[in-house]
């Protein structure tokens, strides 16, 4: 007997995307924290610091929304994938995919689709809560929406690729659970999400500047805040070119790690 040749990677990728979305809605507990965290934080910090101002007529809530939006993107991409993929490897789900000859790209495509949908819906809820619950203005015009769009897309892409990469670094599911969320939390404090970035100690800023979240946060501020607020930034500008460069560099770093080190099993 002769076995029929396997279908295209695209077909399997689409089936993976459908599956990932179905699982997201079927078992929301697995991702609900990544998904709901920014919204919960907005409600808490927005309520406590309702009347605080940072600088240049910008309220604390106005400053906080872009930061927590950036955090949300990091959580639904980097954290959700980093933890989830390590778990799937630990439970042998990836070994099953390997046994079926699944193209890795089809698997990644499914994960990326999940990130796209969860991130988009999360940002939509966040912006609506910010706008109608805390009077935070949305991006002012088409140009600012465009900035929001490319910064979010690049951030989610970097987060997706690095989430897959970090699942490789951690030896098993327990390590991933112990390593990934702390990284995400520390980066939030260093990157100007909860505190105004320009008022952080220089050493904290120097560390944050290496990682994507700082640039994602700053890029988001450039989409939400009035143009005058750029004077309050450390560099006195929004640094769009540098932001894109840093995020793209991280995408490349993540791709190299995934290409060299992706494996379906814990051991070979």
């Amino acid at each position, binding site marked *: 007997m002769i*076995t029929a040749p396997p279908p295209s990677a695209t077909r399997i990728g689409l089936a993976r995307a459908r599956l990932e979305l179905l699982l997201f809605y079927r078992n929301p507990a697995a991702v609900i924290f990544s998904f709901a965290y920014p919204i919960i934080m907005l409600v808490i910090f927005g309520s406590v610091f309702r009347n605080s101002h940072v600088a240049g007529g910008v309220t604390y809530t106005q400053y906080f929304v872009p930061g927590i939006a950036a955090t949300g993107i990091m959580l639904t991409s980097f954290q959700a994938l980093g933890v989830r993929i390590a778990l799937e490897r630990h439970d042998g789900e990836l070994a099953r995919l*390997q046994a079926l*000859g699944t193209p890795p790209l089809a698997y990644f495509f499914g994960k990326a689709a999940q990130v796209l949908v969860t991130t988009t819906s999360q940002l939509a809820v966040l912006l609506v809560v910010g706008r109608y619950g805390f009077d935070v203005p949305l991006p002012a015009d088409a140009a600012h929406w465009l900035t929001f769009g490319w910064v979010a897309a690049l951030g989610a892409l970097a987060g997706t690729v690095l989430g897959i990469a970090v699942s490789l670094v951690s030896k098993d599911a327990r390590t991933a659970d112990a390593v990934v969320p702390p990284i995400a939390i520390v980066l939030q404090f260093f990157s100007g999400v909860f505190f105004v970035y320009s008022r952080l100690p220089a050493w904290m800023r120097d560390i944050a500047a290496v990682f994507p979240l700082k640039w994602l946060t700053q890029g988001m501020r450039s989409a939400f805040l009035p143009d005058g607020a750029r004077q309050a930034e450390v560099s006195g500008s929004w640094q769009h070119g540098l932001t894109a460069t840093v995020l793209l560099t991280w995408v490349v770093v993540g791709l190299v790690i995934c290409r060299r080190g992706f494996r379906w099993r814990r051991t070979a």
Partner: protein
Amino acid sequence: MTAMDDAVRVRGLRKVYAGRTVVDGIDLDIRAGECFALLGPNGAGKTTTIEILEGFRRRDGGDIAVLGADPAAGDRQWRARVGVVAQGLGAVLELSVHEMLQHFATYHGAPRETGELLTAVGLTDAAGTRVRNLSGGQRRRLDVALGVQGRPELLFLDEPTTGLDPAARRQFWTLLESLRAEGTTILLTTHYLDEAAHLADRVAVIAAGRLLETAPPDQLGAALRLTAVVRWTEDGAVHEVPTATPFATVRELCTRFPTGELPDFAVVRPSLEDVYLAMLEDAS
């Protein structure tokens, strides 16, 4: 039969874990369309061997061709021709059995129809059950269904019936027989002798990483089978005479007891199990 007809060809396979040799120079030839059983106790190296043949583990020595290719370099086309039923393959717990089979059907060029698969493995009644809620035996059947879904030319089964109740085991045997009738080559590992004897054309006995013998089940341990035991009761005592020439012994008894019945008289040939246990004992 030339080497081209072999589905699996293994020469001098070796695998070392942390300085311990777990597979120690194994040779195998499995013909296309054959059902071949690797029989051995736990820790004999069966799973390691099969995982190397599946392309999931690296080897430390030896030459292998599985469907004409080195499994360590097997591409998608090759992988599609190989079906795997193994211990550590996870399942998507939040899907129902039916959904899971429907999802994985898309990974194959010409998948078996889902309803037909459910019937073949006896999961029709559990089709709507979430995988999370299946019993161990049901999970095993689902593994088997997923392993044969793509109509593989070569099917690897690593202890496929462990944890199945006797009825499910019989049903599984029937499924394997129908796969064989379609021409599927099957390599299974088992520590159940009756399973190997029932299913396999040939059995390889493996212990401590070495191949002890390869033979059809009824010829296994031919040397050990030469010895029969002639048994009878005389003066209230059981006599047992192991002999390579049982008929000579019987003739002698006929002379000694020309009339009447000899109580409890029997000539006993060793069962497959006796042969197997004797082989393992010799090896250790």
